[in-house]
């Protein structure tokens, strides 16, 4: 089947929808109507809640055929059966109208639905509904409860009235009783009602799917169909069950769902764990450079994050999503952004904050506006600035006198190199530049030192690339991070645009403005490889949730990150600005997405017109 169907099918689809979808709004005008709808909406909500229970109860009586009869029986059955039948038909009609369930031409749910509506009756059904709608409107205008219905469709009027009244009453009662039936009671003329119903149905479908998955694969959305129909049919529709059984007896039960029916192997879980796996080399590198301590901090962060997510979901009785790996990754990244000399509780609190404040309250993975790991870091920086800015350890500190690879207790302030506490390359450089730009009143040796620092970094680039330098746990080894990044690029988990734009902006900007001797005196490589740029650009500015989805948007996002980083590094108070840059840009993501929508297929003229105007 070739896929040019939809456009054309749509046209077909359209007229079919009319009776159902048109109906709702027509009646939306009058107050009476509104009131009633409110009531019914309430009913529907209750109904949705109760649905699960009702469905379970009805589980036994399932079999498509009996339900199907419901729609067909309208003429001969007694009032009650008829009412139920029509309610049934109305619901099925609503369902057919809801393309969420699968547009008609796709035929999934509607197939059984239509069957249930027993099409011999379909036309009648439509005519009747139209009449009902009209009647409702008139009634509202006249403000005389039921009288109005009489004139529009003589054939049905009285019956009609009585039935509708009964139905409405039934709805209210049903709502109170929290019986699923209420949902279907009102005629299709009820927008909100229908919406609720559809929503409820969709929810039911999802739940059914879950259940199916758990059961190891019984029918999913189909299950919903089945459950639902008997929910009414089985309960109070006994008389309507008889007839029909004509031709269609399927030889077996089939799963129904919306197309497509195959799926790529990729899943969120797989992506998250793969990203995590690509950070393993960097973790090993950090352990080698900063000792066993670094590994422990990473482990603490990751487990604290997982524990927090698990605990919160337990607390709120939500389904656990710990296995998707995103919490682990967040915790890992929190630790990666810490100085290696921090006490053990720093990563724990950071990870807790990241998950409990920056992620879960928004709805968990996929809903958080800002990168949780970076929020965790920002929180730590604001709360324990000393730990976060002073607990640096030089590379291979554990090889120094009095320490070993497994040393846990270390006082970073006590570790001195050339008589001063260790500082990261970015810090050293920043103070050197400020010294040189403002040398008045400073002792000569300080100035000489600053000159030395500035002009000696050239030979240190290799150290920065490999990572044998001070800095945050996970950010030092550019090469190991880049290896991971290349793999992610290859897998298509990250878009090259963001890291490229980010790194290029910082590199060029650093070269242009980063020197002490005017423009173009900065050290491009230094700016690229020092600090957290590579980690940020490859792993955090590419976080799927908090960054733009459009290609152009990702370029802009990367450039923005780069500019903010530069500003902080060169002008701001902190030596490093990658995390804040990303966080700030996270906030612009919706805006960027909004203004970088791709030109849609066939919109060639429109696009140029927009560009001009």
């Amino acid at each position, binding site marked *: 089947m070739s*896929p040019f169907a939809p456009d054309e099918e749509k046209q077909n689809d359209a007229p079919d929808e009319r009776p159902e979808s048109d109906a709702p709004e027509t009646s939306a005008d009058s107050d009476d109507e509104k009131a009633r709808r409110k009531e019914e909406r309430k009913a529907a909500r209750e109904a949705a809640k109760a649905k699960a229970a009702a469905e379970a109860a009805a589980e036994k009586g399932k079999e498509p055929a009996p339900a199907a009869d419901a729609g067909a029986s309208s003429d001969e059955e007694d009032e009650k059966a008829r009412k139920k039948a029509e309610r049934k038909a109305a619901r099925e009609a609503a369902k057919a109208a809801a393309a969420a369930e699968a547009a008609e031409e796709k035929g999934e749910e509607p197939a059984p639905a239509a069957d249930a509506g027993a099409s011999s009756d379909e036309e009648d059904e439509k005519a009747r509904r139209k009449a009902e709608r009209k009647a409702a409107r008139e009634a509202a205008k006249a403000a005389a409860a039921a009288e109005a219905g009489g004139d529009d469709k003589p054939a049905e009027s009285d019956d009609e009235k009585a039935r509708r009244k009964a139905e409405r009453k039934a709805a209210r009662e049903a709502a109170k009783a929290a019986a699923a039936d209420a949902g279907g009671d009102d005629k299709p003329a009820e927008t909100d009602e229908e919406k609720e119903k559809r929503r409820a149905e969709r929810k039911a479908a999802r739940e059914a799917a879950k259940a199916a998955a758990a059961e190891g694969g019984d029918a999913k959305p189909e299950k919903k169909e089945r459950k639902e129909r008997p929910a009414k049919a089985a309960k109070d529709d006994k008389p309507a069950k008889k007839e029909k059984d004509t031709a269609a007896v399927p030889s077996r039960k089939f799963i129904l769902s919306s197309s497509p029916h195959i799926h790529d192997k990729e899943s969120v879980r797989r992506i998250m764990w793969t990203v995590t796996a690509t950070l393993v080399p960097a973790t090993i590198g950090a352990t080698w450079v900063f000792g066993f301590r670094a590994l422990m901090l990473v482990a603490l962060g990751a487990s604290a994050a997982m524990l927090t997510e698990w605990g919160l979901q337990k607390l709120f009785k939500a389904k656990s999503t710990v296995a998707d790996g995103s919490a682990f990754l967040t915790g890992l990244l929190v630790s990666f952004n810490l100085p290696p000399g921090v006490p053990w509780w720093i990563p724990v609190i950071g990870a807790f904050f990241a998950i409990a404040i920056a992620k879960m309250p928004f709805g968990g993975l996929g809903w958080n506006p800002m990168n949780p790991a970076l929020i965790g870091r920002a929180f730590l920086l604001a709360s324990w600035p000393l730990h976060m800015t002073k607990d640096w350890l030089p590379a291979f500190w554990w090889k120094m006198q009095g320490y070993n690879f497994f040393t846990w207790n270390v006082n970073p302030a006590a570790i001195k190199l050339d008589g001063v506490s260790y500082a990261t390359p970015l810090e050293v450089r920043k103070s050197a530049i400020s010294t040189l730009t403002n040398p008045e009143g400073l002792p000569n040796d300080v100035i000489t030192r600053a000159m030395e620092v500035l002009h000696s970094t050239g030979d240190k680039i290799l150290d920065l690339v490999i990572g044998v330098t001070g800095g945050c746990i996970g950010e030092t080894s550019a090469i190991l991070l880049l290896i991971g990044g290349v793999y992610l690029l290859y897998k298509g988990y990250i878009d090259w645009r963001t890291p490229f734009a980010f790194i290029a902006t910082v590199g060029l900007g650093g070269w242009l403005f980063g020197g002490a001797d005017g423009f173009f005196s900065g050290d491009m490589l230094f700016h690229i490889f020092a600090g957290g740029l590579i980690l940020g650009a490859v792993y955090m500015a590419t976080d799927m949730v908090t960054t733009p989805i459009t290609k152009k948007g990702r370029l802009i996002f990367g450039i923005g990150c780069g500019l903010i980083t530069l500003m902080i590094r060169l002008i701001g108070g902190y030596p490093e600005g990658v995390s804040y840059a990303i966080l700030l840009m996270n906030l612009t993501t919706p805006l960027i997405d909004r203004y970088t929508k791709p030109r*849609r297929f066939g919109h060639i003229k429109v696009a140029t017109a927009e560009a001009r105007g």
Partner: protein
Amino acid sequence: MKKTFRGGTHPPEFKLTSGVATTPLPVPELIYVPIQQHIGAPGVPVVKKKDEVTVGQPLTQSGGFVSIPAHAPVSGVVKDVIPYANPVGKEMMTVVIETKDDGGDGKGEEDPNWADATPDVIRERVKNAGIAGMGGAAFPTHVKLSPPEAKPIDTVIINGAECEPYLTSDHRLMLERAEDIVRGAMLVRKTVNAKKLFMAVEDNKPDAFESLKKAAASLDSSIQVEMLPVKYPQGAEKQLISALTGREVPPPPALPMDVGCVVQNVGSCVAIYEAVRWQKPLIERYVTITGSGVKKPTNVLAKIGTPLTYLIEAAGGYTDDAAKLIMGGPMMGNALWTDTVPVIKGTSGVLVLNKEQAIIGEEEPCIGCGRCVSVCPVFLLPTNIARLSELERLEDADELGVLECIECGSCTYICPAHRNLVQHIRFGKAAVMAAKRKATTKKEKAA
């Protein structure tokens, strides 16, 4: 570089039956011909219970310009005209014929001068033969062959891409009926008065490419047979046009004719050829029966109206774990709840998936990976549109182009969060269209 379109994805091909020659399916005892198997107005039944019908006799007359008749696929007696399960969802009035004998292939007398038929004659015969697009959309073919004068056609494209995984009916047709395809294509070109004639095949079917090329070379050397890289949805009309000509069909309601193109499926070409030469109505077609849920996937030539049970039987029956029945391919086909529905004109395949394949992961929240954006062949933002549709923010969804979605399923296929994007979008489309219709009616009333 090979020609292709932008966006799209690469589902695994699963072409299990490309090497299986097509066999005619035995005629069933009861045959079910729905009165509408196409897009447009349904036909009006002209037979009633107990009528004798002979093969090829019209069962309905067309109900308007965008409408086509259905014909008796066999000779027999009309058992009844009843509403019956239909693959497109709703029950539909269906002519049930009790077969007496299969009565041959329905060919009428040969027109010796068929090659010189005028465009009007061609259109007439195509319409009378009840031909609808056989790639799945089932749009009446004579309508496509009647472009208004204001829209001159310069290019005819014959669609042999068959980009849906699993399906091979077009592939087999290209191998087995290449010359007839080319003859039909030439008739199409003549009818719409176009200069260029492209035939497009994806490069996973090199044998079909060769076969068409050979046939084309022997009949008319000006025909360009093109090999396109495999990518879904290459066979979508607008994507195919863009791949071959670089032209982009404007958003709906614009049609390919707005950029001077007419696209025909290879199956339709054969039908057109037979209709013009023998006035043969469309009463049979190639169908692939495939998937992990049948024992012996195969290709058959089935009479329109044959219940799927017969096709399944031809494919060795269900496997024990068959769990999902799909009419069409896995990307755009309809899941069916019953196998009693008949083959219709747009049925290119019947796919049965086993339990394991039929279960698709649970829907999770969007993680914003942007994959759906990068595969969408009409450059939409599927995740946003789907969410807006879900929230019923219809105006916003409309603004983002929800109506332009071709429902190709690429976005849902690729989404790591298993979001049912197309499903939500379809809902949005229907709702937006309903709202628009309402607005128009209101306006009309006011005027």
